[in-house]
């Protein structure tokens, strides 16, 4: 157990945005919430999942919805905490700690915001190792853990508990409908996990990893080194393509932001990247160059800063990199849930990192 410093949170915001693979929402507003809380003297602790007792109860939080909406609604740490309180009220039990469902993007800081009000530690783990658009796209779903209950709250005082769901897909559908009605953004507390479940199925050490990644980029920029080279070295990734964004097309359907971006390099070679909140498949002509579950990150070529699917625009100079996926997702059941077919692309997963 250690105290998370203010500097750690700054680095976490940078690292989590990169692990967001285009989605997950910018952590900026959550970072602002944390800065205000830290200025008021609040501190949050980080706990290694290995020291959890098997029967400890842990809250799993996320902010659900379209990143575009969060840019207007902003973030509110009290709502993040309220979703956990509602779960405690429903269960009649108190939580040992709180963890994120996804380390990529805004949700990396969601458990810190809840923990700041609840006085419990953040567990150093998540269930994606990146960001994904749907609730069943988690290592917990790969492990067939129970999908319910779930709490969902909005700032107007609307609160919903989904007490049961036939499976993860149904939980996604039901909770997504609630979220869409709330205005396509909601603070949620997912199905609680035991210490044993987190030790077996969690992606461990991801908060620490995001902090490390963020620090590497911030240090590289300070030293005027190439931040992208630093990321690739630290995370065993691969540089896929560099060029200029020449076209972006977007549409919002069923609460998801879908579309594609085309990027062209100096020699007129061109790739297209499809997205559903996050970057999903990179194409050259009709050939997939990289697909989920590996992490496709589009970075500002100069600063290494991640560029989100809702912010990508014509004329940006970007570098596309691929980072390795958590092992759990490379199993048959893992690929069923988060491979290209889970996003409607009839292609097999082939690692872009294979030599």
């Amino acid at each position: 157990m250690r105290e998370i410093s203010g500097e750690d949170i700054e680095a976490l915001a940078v690292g989590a945005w990169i692990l967001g693979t285009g989605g997950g929402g910018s952590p900026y507003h959550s970072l602002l919430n944390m800065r205000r809380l830290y200025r008021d003297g609040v501190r949050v602790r980080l706990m290694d999942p290995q020291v959890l007792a098997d029967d400890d109860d842990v809250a799993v939080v996320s902010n659900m919805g379209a990143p575009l909406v969060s840019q207007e609604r902003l973030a509110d740490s009290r709502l993040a905490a309220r979703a956990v309180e509602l779960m405690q009220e429903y269960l009649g039990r108190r939580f040992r700690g709180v963890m994120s469902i996804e380390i990529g993007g805004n949700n990396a800081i969601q458990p810190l915001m809840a923990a700041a009000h609840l006085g419990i530690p953040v567990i150093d783990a998540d269930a994606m190792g990146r960001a994904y658009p749907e609730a069943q796209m988690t290592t917990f779903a790969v492990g067939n853990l129970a999908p319910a209950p779930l709490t969902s709250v909005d700032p107007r005082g609307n609160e919903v508990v989904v007490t049961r769901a036939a499976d993860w897909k149904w939980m996604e559908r039901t909770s997504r409908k609630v979220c869409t009605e709330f205005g396509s953004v909601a603070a949620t507390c997912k199905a609680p996990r035991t210490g044993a479940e987190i030790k077996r199925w969690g992606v461990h050490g991801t908060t620490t990893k995001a902090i490390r990644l963020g620090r590497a980029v911030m240090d590289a920029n300070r030293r005027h080194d190439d931040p992208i080279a630093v990321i690739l070295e630290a995370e065993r990734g691969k540089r896929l393509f560099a060029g200029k964004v020449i076209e972006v097309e977007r549409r919002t359907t069923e609460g998801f932001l879908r579309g594609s971006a085309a990027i062209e390099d100096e020699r007129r070679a061109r790739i297209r990247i499809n997205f559903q909140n996050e970057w999903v498949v990179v194409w050259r002509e009709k050939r997939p160059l990289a697909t989920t579950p590996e992490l496709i990150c589009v970075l500002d070529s100069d600063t290494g800063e991640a560029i989100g699917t809702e912010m990508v625009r014509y004329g940006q100079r970007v570098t596309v990199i691929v980072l390795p996926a958590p092992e759990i997702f490379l199993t048959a059941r893992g690929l069923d849930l988060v491979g290209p077919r889970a996003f409607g692309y009839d292609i097999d997963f082939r690692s872009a990192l294979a030599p």
Partner: protein
Amino acid sequence: MKRIGIDVGGTNTDAVLVSEGSVEAAVKVPTTADVTEGILAAMRLLRDSAGGAYRDIAAVMIGTTHFTNAVVQHRELAQVAAVRIGAPATTALPPFCDWPDDLAKLVADGTWIVQGGHDYDGRPFMPLDPEEIRGVAREIRARGIRDVAVTAMFSPLNSSHEDAVAEILSEEIPEVSVTCSHWLGGIGLLPRENAALLNASLVPLARRTVEAFERAMRESGIGSPLYITQNDGTVAAASYAAALPVFGFASGPTNSMRGGAYLSELEEAIVADVGGTTTDFGHLQAGFPRQANSIVQIGGVRTLFRMPDLVSIGLGGGSIIDPDRIAIGPQSVGFRLTEQALVFGGSTLTATDIAVAAGLADIGDRRKVAHLAPALIDAVLARARAMIEAHADRIKTRAGDAVLLAVGGGSFLIPDRLQGISRVVRVEHGSCANAVGAAIAQVSGEVDQVFQGLDRGEAIARGRSLAEQRAVEAGAAADELTLVEAEDIPVAYLPGHALRVRIKVVGNIARA
């Protein structure tokens, strides 16, 4: 067609007369504390210099860094009341929450977050409560604040709550000046609100400044319309610019780069604009400044303007030299160069003095720097070269040598040979490139509208033709319009596939 372009910088006021695309006359005078005097002096000098050509002026275009400087230097900013419409959402992060503390302390004079705003699908998030708004308006009036920024959740998709609040404020507060955030930007509540707050804070200064410009025009006997240059290299009518000063924030560097491109006929180059206090490095692509990728900070405030991608360093003609540490700037004597520099009989060692001593420039009295040690001159020039090489490299988009275009009054500080630069280009009138950029500025036409029942291609085409029509109405030549911005945002859950389209086209002023 004749036009006068004027650039009011922190150090110099430059003026050029451009006739049928060529520069007839170019002059440079020191900027005065009261900008009017400097402009009048420049116009007098321009008239004497141009002789018979100084007549039938069709338009005067003025660019100024006045508003940016006010923010950066924390001066002449009005105190602002912030009214945000979005409660019970957004309250955790109140207005000014991501401003630097010192600037917020200077500008913020009360923040209110009232119920209301919209959702992404256009439905009201919460209803507005007119009584609550009237209560806020009375509190603002009681505090004696006249400048108010109003920002509603999702106002770029539905501005009705901002409009309604602005109306109530106008009813309740005499002489109130309201900036609505939807005039300034798109989705992104905090950066849009920040832009509105900065704008509201600058409106009184902008009004005074534009009035001073207009007075200077009248006094110099020119009756042609006055335009103010904008961030994107286009011009706007003076009255519009007085209400929306933030749109002129980056016009200085934009004008220099556009003017440099025009004079050199280079389409692709690194531009180093050396002024009195700073050097701005930018990158010309297809004759236009490359835009910054990310959110732009002004005086430490995050906003969402499209701005040229710039790297600035404290190196200019007026930079103060510390001979012991061989340090250049960032302090500068600014427009007091002609009093304080050694070559003008002053007592401050400046970069200009070093350049004169080295024979790079012929300004003032060379004998007054004859005593400077050659070793000091060489060391300072080496330091300047290192600063220039490092920053020219930072603005590059790829490795390899690039052409560097040196403009601005202090461009004598740029050496002819630089590492990483294939050649250094200098142009006639290059020291007044910014005024040339103002004189050749184009006119734009913009559309920001929701289209329904059309597919994406049709909606964009419809928006584009509407924008083109507006540009032509504003005086652009119909056959030279280019698309500079196209953005479409889907608006889900409205009948008939609604698409919000933002289009901007620019074109040259049509010849009479």
